[in-house]
């Protein structure tokens, strides 16, 4: 080839044969003869198509169509698309297609005369290619001239012709490679043309035609079309509708909307990649990540990422993406394990995003809080330069983790130190991110947990203001804080206001709150009424959420039926309506057979009927089910404290243990005071009673942490 070019360099007529990017067409070959093109080109440049054609026909002994096809290709390659179009317009391509069909479509018997049919195939395929390539080049010329709709129509005719010629689809390996190339190119070009023409429905049909018919495409070009279609489905905003019934096979998955079809195509592509059929294309995975996370299906996405061949992603990157997937799918344990790996000192221990995610996961679990504090501190020390804006996030998580850690600490001193540090971090975070609403709510909850009710009230109000009352948790917190301040009627007003801002279906938690508020105000009949309403809501929800209904993605607006029955049982037992209480308890037990809450209520009822042994048994059973169940610990302690001087040490240790778990339990403080008094330690008793009294003044009707 190089020598040819050298030779050409010496020729003066070179310029005329120059295509756009300097590649020069020099020779045309046919029937074993080849001629230089300079002469032909000169004629073409003069606009003399006929003469150019006849010189080819004579020089290469070609027929009219062959000569025209060659000329057209020559013009096209010279970049003279208008010229090419003029040449092609001279051929009656439709007639040529008509003539092609019988000779190829003739189905000769497979055994007899095989050689004859094969040679005929060769000849007719050659002829077919000549015509089809000519049309294809016409299509390309039209496209380049911006006449895309015409181009698309012509391109469709190429595909129609191919379909007519090969009724059963293109057989593998029996087709001339040039013909196959033309077919593949036409198949790939058609949807692009329709897209350029703005005819999106036609583009969709063209894509489906390309992918669902037998064109014998090679893997790469099929993959390109699949990706193109997936991208179109994902982003064009044009709804494709399900594919026609004709292509639907029994038992196979048929996508019914854009997202389904796009995800299917992308998954198929990913699979082809790791089967080695096509090259890895990073954008395919990104599209899949986008599509699956839009559908909230990150666990499926995790599976896809796990299947990616090693070497594609750096292992740390993969762990981090997987951690995001699992965390979004609520599988925090797996996510944390992956993050621990990626944050190992030999991997990327300073990655701020991973550190923050790990701290976030830890902040939700008191047992992991100490670990989370470490992550948050590491994140803070690495928030530099580009990531400095994440400092507020780091401080916020540090505060949350410290707050959780405080709950687990065994000494008072340690606890108060952690609590004040937690608040300090959260306040610092709020200084950096004054408009972070989550942080506002978290500060409110922290303050209320430490019984700084005025500060809590400020934050709760601010949160409702800034969210425009759109978040239920804000209302709940405000009502709880007010209830802790014993401003019950105001708390009720807040609850009612919140109910006006919610739909009936989501009023469950508010109704529960309201019932408890009524109980606190000794409005027992009102409370029963509210519980009854709540039960009706639960029943209605059960019916409509039935087995076939899709479970709502937001779980927290559903009322827990068990809680309702148990609460009602408690209420009835406090009114000494033992029968009603029994019935409610029975209902609760049907829903949850072994639960400390039920045993707790049962014990209270026994105690109310002065069956002390049974009550004790129930409380102890509750503790056996859940050793950290504080209310029963306190009640056992209370019972033992009345059982004479021998039992006092046991009672004291139980109560101390309860206070270690829940330092704000006023009843525990009270009974501890009783024990101290009975044992004659008056100063201690006074301290305990004081604590109990102070806590009672700030006791909410439900635990503050139930808000978060």
């Amino acid at each position, binding site marked *: 080839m190089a020598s040819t070019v050298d030779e050409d360099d010496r020729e003066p007529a070179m310029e005329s044969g120059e295509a756009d990017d300097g590649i020069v067409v*020099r020779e045309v070959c046919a029937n074993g003869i080849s001629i230089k093109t300079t002469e032909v080109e000169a004629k073409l440049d003069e606009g003399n198509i006929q003469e150019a054609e006849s010189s080819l026909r004579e020089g290469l002994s070609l027929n009219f169509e062959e000569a025209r096809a060659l000329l057209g290709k020559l013009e096209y*390659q010279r970049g003279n698309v208008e010229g090419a179009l003029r040449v092609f317009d001279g051929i009656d391509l439709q007639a040529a297609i008509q003539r092609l069909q019988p000779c190829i479509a003739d189905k000769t018997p497979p055994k007899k005369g095989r050689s004859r049919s094969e040679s005929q195939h060769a000849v007719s395929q050659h002829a077919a290619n000549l015509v089809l390539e000519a049309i294809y080049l016409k299509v390309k010329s039209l496209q380049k001239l911006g006449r895309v709709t015409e181009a698309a129509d012509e391109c469709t005719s190429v595909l129609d012709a191919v379909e007519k010629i090969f009724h059963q689809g293109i057989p593998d390996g029996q087709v001339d490679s040039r013909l196959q190339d033309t077919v593949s190119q036409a198949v790939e070009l058609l949807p692009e043309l329709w897209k350029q023409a703005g005819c999106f429905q036609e583009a969709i049909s063209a894509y489906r035609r390309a992918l669902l018919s037998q064109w014998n495409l090679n893997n790469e070009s099929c993959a390109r079309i699949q990706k193109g279609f997936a991208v179109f489905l994902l982003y*064009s905003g044009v709804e494709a509708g399900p594919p026609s019934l004709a292509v639907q096979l029994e038992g196979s998955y048929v996508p019914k909307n854009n*997202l389904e079809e796009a995800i299917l195509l992308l998954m198929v592509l990913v699979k082809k990649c790791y089967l080695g059929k096509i090259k890895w294309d990073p954008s395919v995975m990104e599209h899949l990540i986008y599509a699956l996370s*839009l559908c909230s299906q990150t666990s499926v996405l995790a599976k896809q990422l796990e299947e990616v061949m090693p070497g594609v992603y750096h292992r740390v990157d993969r762990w981090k993406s997987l951690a995001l997937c699992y965390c979004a799918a609520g599988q925090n344990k797996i996510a944390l394990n992956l993050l621990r790996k990626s944050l190992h000192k030999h991997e990327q221990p300073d990655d701020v*995003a991973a550190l923050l995610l790990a701290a976030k996961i830890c902040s939700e679990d008191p047992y992991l809080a100490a670990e989370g504090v470490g992550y948050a501190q590491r994140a803070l020390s690495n928030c530099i330069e580009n990531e400095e804006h994440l400092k507020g996030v780091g401080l916020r998580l540090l505060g949350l983790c410290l707050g959780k850690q405080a709950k687990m600490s065994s000494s008072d001193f340690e606890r108060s130190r952690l609590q004040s540090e937690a608040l300090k971090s959260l306040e610092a975070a709020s200084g950096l991110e004054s408009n972070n609403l989550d942080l506002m709510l978290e500060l409110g909850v922290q303050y209320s947990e430490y019984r700084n009710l005025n500060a809590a009230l400020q934050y709760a109000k601010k949160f*409702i203001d800034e969210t425009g009352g759109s978040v239920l948790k804000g209302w709940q917190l405000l009502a709880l804080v007010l209830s802790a301040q014993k401003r019950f009627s105001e708390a009720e007003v807040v609850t009612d*206001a919140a109910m006006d801002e919610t739909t009936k279906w989501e009023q469950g938690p508010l109704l529960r709150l309201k019932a408890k508020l009524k109980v606190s105000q000794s409005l027992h009949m009102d409370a029963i009424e509210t519980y009854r309403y709540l039960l009706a809501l639960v029943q209605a929800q059960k019916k409509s959420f039935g087995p076939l209904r899709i479970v709502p993605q937001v779980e927290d607006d559903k009322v827990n039926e068990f809680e309702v029955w148990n609460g009602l049982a408690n209420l009835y037992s406090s009114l000494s309506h033992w029968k009603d209480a029994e019935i409610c308890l029975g209902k609760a037990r049907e829903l949850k057979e072994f639960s400390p809450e039920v045993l707790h209520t049962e014990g209270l009822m026994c105690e109310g009927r002065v069956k002390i042994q049974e009550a004790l048994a129930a409380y102890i059973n509750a503790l056996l089910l859940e050793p950290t169940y504080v209310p029963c610990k306190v009640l056992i302690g209370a019972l033992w404290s009345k059982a004479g001087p021998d039992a006092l040490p046991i009672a004291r240790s139980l109560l101390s243990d309860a206070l270690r778990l829940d330092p704000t339990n006023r009843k525990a403080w009270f009974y501890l005071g009783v024990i101290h008094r009975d044992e004659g330690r008056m100063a201690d008793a006074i301290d305990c009673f004081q604590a109990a009294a102070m806590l009672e003044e700030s006791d909410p009707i439900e635990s503050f942490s139930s808000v978060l």
Partner: protein
Amino acid sequence: MSSSSSSDDDSAAVEPTPAEETAENKEPETAIEEIAAPAEAEETTPTIAAVEAPVTKTSSRASGSGPVVRFDISQSSSLTTIAQTAIESLKPILPNTIPSSLSSAPNPALALLNDLETIAQITALLRRPTSGAGDDNLCRWLYDTFQSSNPDLKLVVLRFLPVLLSAYLSRVVSRRKSLAGFEAVLLSLYAHETNRRASQPLSVNIPDLTHPSIYHESIFPHKNNATALNLAVISPSLEPHGMVRSTKRARIVGVALELYYTKIDKIPETSKIEFCEFCRIWAGDVNNRGVKKEEATAAVVEEAEEEEEEDGIGRIPLPWEILQPILRVLGHCLLGSNSIVNCKKKERTALFDAAIGAIRSLYLRSMHDINPKAILATGSLVKLGDMAMESTDEIDYTEIPYQTIINL
């Protein structure tokens, strides 16, 4: 998008009076006095619902018949009249005149949709600090126009959704003024979508490659395993809403955005660019706006500055029910057909730039919120945007190879 500066001097057109205080402030401290407010709101509910129910039914029938942008004029003389009437009723609301060519155009609704001058006037009105009250004539016009049976007029209303949401979402937080006008428009969009979907949820059956599909064969063909598929609900079923309850606001706005997305390929680019710019502001990205100022439309930048001066609000809560449709719209703006065609020519469109800016801001926002799902979705879009920008001239596989020797 032409700039729209004259907003304050023409306030005579819409005089705000505290007539319809439906979405009344229910601040808990003062809630005792205002406990009557919801009852009042309930009273206005049936009127809106009564207007909506019959009208939207007919309109959903009209729009359900497939693509309707290029309709036959001879058959649509009534649609033309409807559009002309709408334009007539718009005239007294706007401060400046509307070009008469709009009414005489073959498709007046589309002409209105693409008339930058009029669009700018409406945008300016929507952005006025007093807009959106219950007696706002423009909101009433938008509401009535959306009820019409002309699908192109509906597009005109949808075109203003970004600017309307921007005004609504930033003001509704402080709840100083009644925004019943905005809410009526949003509720009518919500009701339309509820009707169109027959309240049904939108769900996606996540494919599983162990089952054969139309695009692939499976080595282990399971016979009857439809249950093994993952069903993902992308938009839960729709309950009717006669008023905007604050805990449902995100859902109503989200559904309005879902409706915007279903028509996204017919929405003018200027509206999409505005949407992208507002997303940046909602994400809370105020730092590097100056850098890209020249790319932003004048209206949006002004809006942002005003908001900032006003109360420093920009960042809004972005629950998934709002964020998800936002991400779908932004995905389209970034990689939808128009941008792609232009990207290949290495000319980044204004829309592409606006979209990538919005997505970057949302990515940072999701990092701040440590919202893993949003980090994944926005992160992938950021990477795809970067890939699109970096892509060197792609090989055109539909081009025939150059040959120095042409063989027959």
